């Protein structure tokens, strides 16, 4: 079990704790529509991993396979080196938190949290007093002391979320799985609970997966982020890796605002629509590629210097700057750039710009 103190948990990740969960070439078909294509991932003990992706990317399916709520069509799942797929959901010892919490409405908060302990076979069931002690301890951990006699309908959304987490922790799970844990909450409550979840994780040290479609949440909270799209893993890495070194155009465009343009690389220069862009690469052979850049990473280019040029079709205020929407190239593609307030020009004006930071992806 993960009885690590916070300090041990921290260091063990840093030193490379043993692999706790192995997902090996896991695939899933629902009838004729595949949801996962051979997904593989190793997760170390005590890691907090975010499964990030748009809806339909397969992240929830992967979570449900880990929990034993779905069976994969192919592949293996190992917990601590041992096969987990042979275990029915009841024996996997998973703490699962559903997006809408799935609290038992006819039970008090106390009975909800105690449920996992009270359904154990008599031989392994703790005594009543011990169950009570543990439930009250967990209520304290999730800061709901005194609410044990309430019913779920008498709680706020954030309180329900914390009851759901306490209930999952009560069985001392070997793995904690959270499906969109903040999805049903207000923006402010989300932020508070996010910080709080990180604290709980650091104190309890459970290996944890959480599913989210919110990149900010994933980047802020997780030790590692797994970006998924259409049933495949696009990239696994730290927040910095994902943001600064995106492995694919999908990751680049999913994380943060971006524009992707089809370009041709010729003689070490990047050309767009046949014109040089003023961007250089150290590749010489001619090939087609995708240029990616973020709106705030561009500068305007005066006169006839090489640049990407386009007509302004819309402008809007964007924070401290102004966002221009341009039609660029012969195919009238959309590009977005940010300029200083005061630098903008009337709609229809032709402007040239050049990305300061940019990435080239294979076409």
């Amino acid at each position: 079990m993960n009885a690590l103190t916070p300090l041990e948990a921290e260091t063990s990740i840093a030193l490379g704790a043993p692999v706790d969960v192995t997902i090996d070439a896991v695939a899933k078909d629902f009838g004729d529509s595949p949801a996962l294509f051979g997904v593989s991932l190793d997760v170390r003990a005590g890691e907090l991993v975010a499964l990030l992706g748009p809806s339909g990317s397969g992240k929830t399916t992967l979570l449900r396979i880990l929990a034993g709520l779905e069976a994969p069509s192919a592949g293996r799942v190992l917990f601590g080196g041992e096969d987990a797929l042979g275990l029915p959901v009841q024996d996997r010892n998973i703490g699962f938190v559903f997006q809408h919490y799935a609290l038992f409405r006819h039970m008090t908060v106390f009975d909800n949290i105690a449920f996992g302990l009270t359904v154990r076979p008599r031989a392994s069931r703790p005594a009543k007093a011990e169950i009570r002690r543990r439930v009250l301890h967990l209520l304290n951990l999730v800061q709901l002391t005194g609410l044990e006699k309430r019913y779920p309908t008498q709680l706020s959304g954030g309180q329900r979320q914390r009851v759901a987490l306490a209930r999952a922790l009560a069985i001392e799970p070997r793995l904690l799985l959270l499906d969109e844990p903040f999805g049903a909450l207000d923006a402010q409550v989300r932020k508070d609970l996010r910080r709080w979840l990180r604290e709980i994780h650091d104190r309890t040290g459970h290996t944890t997966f959480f599913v989210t479609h919110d990149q900010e949440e994933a980047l802020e909270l997780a030790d590692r982020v797994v970006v998924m799209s259409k049933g495949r893993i696009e990239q696994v890495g730290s927040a910095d890796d994902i943001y600064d070194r995106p492995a694919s155009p999908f990751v680049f465009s999913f994380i943060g605002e971006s524009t992707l343009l089809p370009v041709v690389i010729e003689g070490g220069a990047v050309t767009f629509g046949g014109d040089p862009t003023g961007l250089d690469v150290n590749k010489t052979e001619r090939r087609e590629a995708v240029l990616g850049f973020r709106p705030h990473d561009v500068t305007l280019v005066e006169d006839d210097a090489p640049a990407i040029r386009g007509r302004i079709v819309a402008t809007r205020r964007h924070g401290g700057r102004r966002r221009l929407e341009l039609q660029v190239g012969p195919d009238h593609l959309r590009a977005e750039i940010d300029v200083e307030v005061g630098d903008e020009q009337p709609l229809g004006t032709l402007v040239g710009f050049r990305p300061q930071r940019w990435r080239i992806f294979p076409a």
Partner: protein
Amino acid sequence: MATPLALGRRPGVIPGFGLTLGFTLAYLSLIVLIPLAGLVVRAASLGWADFMAIALDPRTLAALRLSFGVSAIAALVNAVFGLVVAWVLVRYDFPGKRIIDAVVDLPFALPTAVAGIALTALYAPNGWVGQYATMLGFKIAYTPIGIFIALVFIGIPFIVRTVEPVLADLDREIEEMAATLGARRWTAVRRVVLPTLVPALLTGFALAFARAVGEYGSVIFIAGNIPYVSEIAPLLIVIRLTEFNYAAATGVATIMLIISFILLFAINLIQAWSRRRLG
């Protein structure tokens, strides 16, 4: 049966409030409230002593005991099997499911007299089903068991149709949650699913019970109608009427009416309670 309806309408442009509410109240009063009030007034005019004499008459007591007792047993049996039927219809798929689902409403559509003679033919000592009872040495038709059969028939849709929508609305994640917490299937059903069905089951039970207590047509053919043994309360009312003993008929009817209203009240309480608790 006074109706304290205050005519405080919401201001708005839609016409016809006075006309429609007036007609509704007039029609309701003429068809339902005044005739029912007539029954209550007639019972009240009996005087306490006479009323108690009718209520405590051994034949009345036997009929009431039979009606309420067998109705309770039939509603209980229906609660169990109705739950199974609702469960199967909501959760499983099998060929012909839609037809089966439609058949559940048969007792609502089939005239009670038709049900009565059909059940009698089936459960008579030489009937399709009754012959097997005869072989085992007991009788179904013309005994209280026959009454039970008829009251089960009449009550089936009440349980199924009250449990079905609640079961269909139940979030399956609740059951998955219980499983991840280690609960075996039966434990999850017993501790998580069934408790949320209790209000619907109680409501269905009360509806089936109330209907069974008042049921007449489907019972009298199969019951045998032997005083003190298989004579139900509604039949006793009819018998008293044919004897022109209006006082006794009124007395028995009033007792049944009071118990029905208590049941109706109980149903409303159950529903208010479950709305509060389960949101």
